[in-house]
């Protein structure tokens, strides 16, 4: 058993530790393959890679129950994969195909799996925060102990709905786990230019919510914190906010080279503080896995992505006739 660093009572089974590696690698390679597909012209518009932030989605979602729900962001592929969405149907959605989760109507910024508890990426920064408290409200109204997880960013924490929503979550004691992914940049503007306080978690404590700040690139720490936060929410102990410090491995979206990001900073986060490299070393040094085992997992991930890309490319284009027929049917309200 691998004891995680903060709370000695929460332990990671070897299976879970390995699974977290697999999931992070899946996200990493999904994004890299998506970028290749974008460059070859198979994906249009643009999307926002989750590269470098993989430990947050994986650590949080491993701490959830299947019937919990997450509300995602424009940078949402990692959340979707961590919550268990199918890679082929995700990729098909990125390609705008009928076989995608949203039948090509949504795309990367609106990808959702409502029945699977992924209640939507969002093209509006901060747009998902109020929705998450509503999900929690609904869960409680139904008398369940399901919880809502709200992924959002440092950028969104400067949006008015953040203040409104954490306040309402606090006064009504709603079961929401707020996961603030502080990747230090809102599009191209650094958070220290848009906030006088470096500790964004303080904003939550000011509203009466328990909050902690952690290194979001350590997946075991994320898992441990999320497990405590989720447990608190589930027991009616109120909302909880975890600020996870992390970094984008590139610009805001696939077409943004991120030239405003200092090289030494980028080198640090991509090198020494890369979440996947760190976890790989931990698994090996703690004797949970050999390098070869992990290489084998990498190969398995690659095969799954090959299949996903093939599924997506084989999936048919949506039909305009069908689209128009559905539009007509939606106008006939009865």
């Amino acid at each position, binding site marked *: 058993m691998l004891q995680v660093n903060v709370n000695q009572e929460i332990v990671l089974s070897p299976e879970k530790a390995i699974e977290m590696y697999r999931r992070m690698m899946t996200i990493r390679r999904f994004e890299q393959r998506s970028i290749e597909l974008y460059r070859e012209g198979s994906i249009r518009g643009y999307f926002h890679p989750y590269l470098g932030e993989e430990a947050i989605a994986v650590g949080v979602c491993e701490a959830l129950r299947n019937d919990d729900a997450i509300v995602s962001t424009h940078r949402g592929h990692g959340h979707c994969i961590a919550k268990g969405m199918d890679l082929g149907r995700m990729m098909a959605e990125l390609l705008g195909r009928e076989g995608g989760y949203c039948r090509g*109507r949504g795309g990367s910024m609106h990808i959702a799996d409502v029945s699977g508890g992924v209640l939507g990426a969002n093209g509006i920064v901060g747009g998902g925060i109020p929705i998450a408290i*509503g999900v929690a409200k609904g869960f409680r109204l139904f008398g369940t102990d399901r919880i809502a997880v709200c992924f959002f960013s440092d950028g969104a924490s400067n949006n008015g709905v953040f203040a409104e929503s954490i306040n309402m979550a606090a006064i009504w004691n709603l079961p929401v786990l707020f996961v603030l992914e502080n990747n230090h940049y809102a599009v191209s503007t650094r958070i220290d230019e848009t906030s006088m306080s470096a500790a964004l978690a303080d904003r939550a404590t000011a509203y009466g919510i328990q909050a902690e700040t952690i290194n979001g690139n350590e997946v075991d720490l994320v898992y441990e914190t999320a497990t405590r936060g989720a447990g608190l929410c589930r027991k009616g102990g109120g909302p909880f906010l975890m600020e996870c410090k992390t970094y984008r491995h590139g610009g805001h979206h696939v077409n943004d080279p991120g030239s405003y990001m200092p090289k030494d900073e980028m080198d640090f986060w991509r090198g020494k503080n890369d979440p996947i490299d760190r976890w790989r070393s931990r698994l090996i040094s703690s004797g949970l896995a050999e390098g070869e085992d992990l290489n084998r997992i990498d190969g398995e991930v690659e095969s799954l992505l090959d299949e996903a890309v093939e599924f997506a490319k084989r999936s048919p284009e949506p039909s305009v006739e069908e689209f128009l027929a*559905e539009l007509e049917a939606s106008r006939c309200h009865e």
Partner: protein
Amino acid sequence: MSRVIMYREALNEAIAEEMRRDRTVFLAGEGVAERGGSFRTSVGLLDEFGPERVVDTPISEASFTGLGVGAAIVGCRPIIEILFVDFATLIMDQLVNQAAKYDFMSGGRGRVPMVVRTQGGSGNGLAAQHSQSLEAWFYHVPGLKVVMPATPYDAKGLLKSAIRDDDPVVFIEHKLLYMSKGEAPEEEYTVPLGRADVKREGNDVTLISYSRHTLLCLEAARKLSEEGIDVEVVDLRTLSPLDKETILASARKTGRVVVVHEACKQGGVGGDIAAMIMEEAFDYLDAPVVRVAGLDTPIPFNVTLENACTPDIKKICSAARLLLYRNEVM
């Protein structure tokens, strides 16, 4: 068994009945619980249903509308009350980018069965930020339904349908109508969304309106009948989806149409209806379709100026006479 009730009582009954019928229905808004609503539409609901289902919110319109969206996504039927339609400026992201498109963006795999109840209109001396008629904004957005009842009967039946509907519905009441009275049966009934109501039949000219101005059109029709003009009054009740069939049937029948609303003329719903009639029933028309609408101005505070902004019965009658080439009656 019919009885006479007030518009606000009709709304109160609709909410209470639906909350009894379906435990996923809840009401949230500013002052809806302890105070019973600024217009007394939710009196008694807190006592009957408790604070989890009748919720006083902070002044956080954007986020408590989003609360409704999220709760609706997971199967609730929230009624979100926005005190004045003017404050809808604060909720547009949640309404337009989130609620209206969720079903579509998810490929038809998610629904948002939420009602946003609000009230608008001028006439109470509340000036420019509490008197607007903003329905055209919502009417313009695919994915939203827009309901604007004129009578207690319609208010109750339409609100019940709106709550049961699986799409987001913007339900706009009129602040001058809350104390108005009308017949409504005690027995259970609903009024379907998307169906206009011919509130008076006639052959010479059609007045098309909705909300409070339906009542003014009916009054104008009575006045015009004394001059021998036989007026048909179509109350749209629901703006979106628009009941084109009823509108076109009436236009074809009378050949003369006046569209009447309180909202500003520029970019108003009336222009869209007039264009639709001309596209689809031009050959039946004996005169151009005309609009009688509010002045294109913020609503002034002074009562004389305020009254000058909103079409009155006199203006409606004049427009009808004009289409019939009748001289003005002095």
